[in-house]
């Protein structure tokens, strides 16, 4: 059964077809990559799935229910979490607090419970804090828990973002260029992490320019070019797909 089903999805910006009639599905439990040259529409595709942008046509279904048209927070609470190509951490909050916000969907203390500091919320807060610390440790950044997240080094900021996304215990994780700006060691560690995440039964949809990372860890690849899907196959088949090589790999062969 496909976890995510994208059908004839389109998004126009004026005359530009940023995503043009794209259909594919993401089966449960795999790592699937979306690749394509700059401006191919990969980030736009993520924004459509996560509800950040209204779509022009088509539909997105998650667990066989239509999610297109829902607000981002509703989609998030259904079990889709994401990271951003341009990191978006909460200004003025520590790394730990950033990750704790990630626990929002799986906790419930509201305005009244918060204002009256009801005893049952203490336990919830403690759990949130512990879980967030564990995630920071998992990503090797526990020592920066109390540092303001936006003042961390680039790679660490990416790690905080990933921890935050994992804190929401998503069923589908959308990663938009998670390796951008990382050195080779960090990238290798990331590859390991993403595989570990997949082993925890979290399905991963990954946008990435780092071809060796993509070919190493993903089970299926979708190729976009100028908003259109030009191929969808296994990594091995994609590497030998003539159109892909011509349109994408051919013009960017040092990738």
């Amino acid at each position, binding site marked *: 059964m496909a976890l995510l089903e994208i059908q004839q999805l389109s998004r126009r910006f004026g005359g530009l077809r940023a995503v043009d009639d794209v259909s594919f599905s993401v089966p449960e439990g795999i790592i699937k990559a979306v690749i394509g040259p700059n401006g191919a529409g990969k980030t736009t595709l993520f924004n459509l799935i996560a509800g*950040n942008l209204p779509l022009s046509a088509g539909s997105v279904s998650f667990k066989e229910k239509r999610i297109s048209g829902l607000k*981002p*927070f509703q989609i*998030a609470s259904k079990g889709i979490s994401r990271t951003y190509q341009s990191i978006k*951490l909460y200004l*003025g909050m520590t790394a730990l607090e950033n990750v704790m*916000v990630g626990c929002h969907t799986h906790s419930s203390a509201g305005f009244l419970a918060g*204002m*009256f500091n009801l005893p049952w919320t203490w336990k919830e807060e403690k759990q949130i804090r512990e879980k967030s610390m564990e995630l920071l440790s998992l990503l090797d950044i526990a020592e920066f828990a109390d540092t303001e997240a936006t003042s961390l080094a680039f790679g660490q900021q990416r790690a905080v973002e990933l921890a935050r996304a994992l804190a929401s215990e998503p069923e589908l994780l959308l990663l938009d260029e998670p390796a951008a700006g990382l050195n080779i060691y960090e990238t290798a560690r990331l590859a390991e992490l993403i595989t570990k995440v997949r082993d925890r039964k979290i399905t991963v949809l990954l946008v990435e320019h780092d071809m060796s990372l993509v070919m190493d860890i993903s089970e299926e690849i979708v190729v976009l070019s100028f908003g259109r899907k030009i191929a969808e196959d296994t990594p091995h088949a994609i590497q030998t797909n003539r159109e892909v090589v011509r349109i994408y790999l051919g013009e960017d062969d040092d990738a």
Partner: protein
Amino acid sequence: MGLKKYIPIPILLLAVVAIQLTTHYTETPFYLTQLTMSAYYALLVTGLCLVMGYAGQISLGHAGFFAIGGYTSAALTTFNFTPVKDHAVLRFFDKFHLLMTTEDMFGDILLNFHPWAACVIAIIVTIIIAFAIGIPVLKLKGHYLAMATLGFGIIIYRIVLATEFFGEADGISEVPGFNVLPGVSVNGDFDARIQNYYIAWTLVTIGLVLLLNLIHSRVGRALRAIHGAEDAADAMGVDTAGYKLNIFVISAVFASIAGIFLTHYNGGIGPSEAGVMKSVRYVAIVAIGGMASLWGALVMAVGLSFLSLRGMFGSYDDAVFGAILILIMLFAPDGLLRLHYLDKVKRFFRKTEDIS
């Protein structure tokens, strides 16, 4: 764990008592009047601090909510409803014993709302109006939100100024005291001065505890996340629109309660309380207090309101607050009480907490 946030509360209470005792021994009890009024303004300002500093929204309409509370309570407890006492609406309220009769000095029977009933009705009215305004307006951001809330403030101001029921330019006077509990009455009587000082500061303390709790809760974290990166908060499942609306309404209720109590304390309310310059003043106080600092907002609200009420700014009163706003925005957008030594103190406490 978690008690650290209350540390300043006993300090505040000690200061409150110390100030009262000082006025007693220096025979300057008249200061208590302005300190009581300042406390109510502080209640409003701390509520606004959550909207501005934590959720990152601005409201130039909070004097409007103060006025809605004050005017509703004043009108219901002061207007003589005897001529319309057989109206279905009044009979409805009477059935629940929400009305009371008093005799004026000419022996005429006056029919008014009980202050508690008036207070609850005023708060409900505030909540309804805050939702009605907040739902469309909070979709806006930045300057647009500022302008829209400003528009709301102007509307409230013109309404109280133009409505006979609200006393037009004279406002409402001879508002009775508010017997909050048996023996505890909010009024401006000379011998109730000390009691009222403590009533006001009790209310401020309760308000502060509620807001401190909220800031340090899951909701407070979500509000700060909205401030820090709104779409990323949304992407983590925070209902950003709903949260902004709720905190706006809560702060409106704080403003309204401040208006209700201050009106009973002063024995009246006039249109200047609804004025736009008042709203600007509250925003300026939150800004100078450090935006996201409840304690900064509290200290600045009390200090500046006190000076203003003592007439220290003379006829430049409003100009002073305008100037504060400009200077803060130019030179200290993080507020005055955010100097580096404070950070050091904070770090010190953080370390000691880690060890424990």
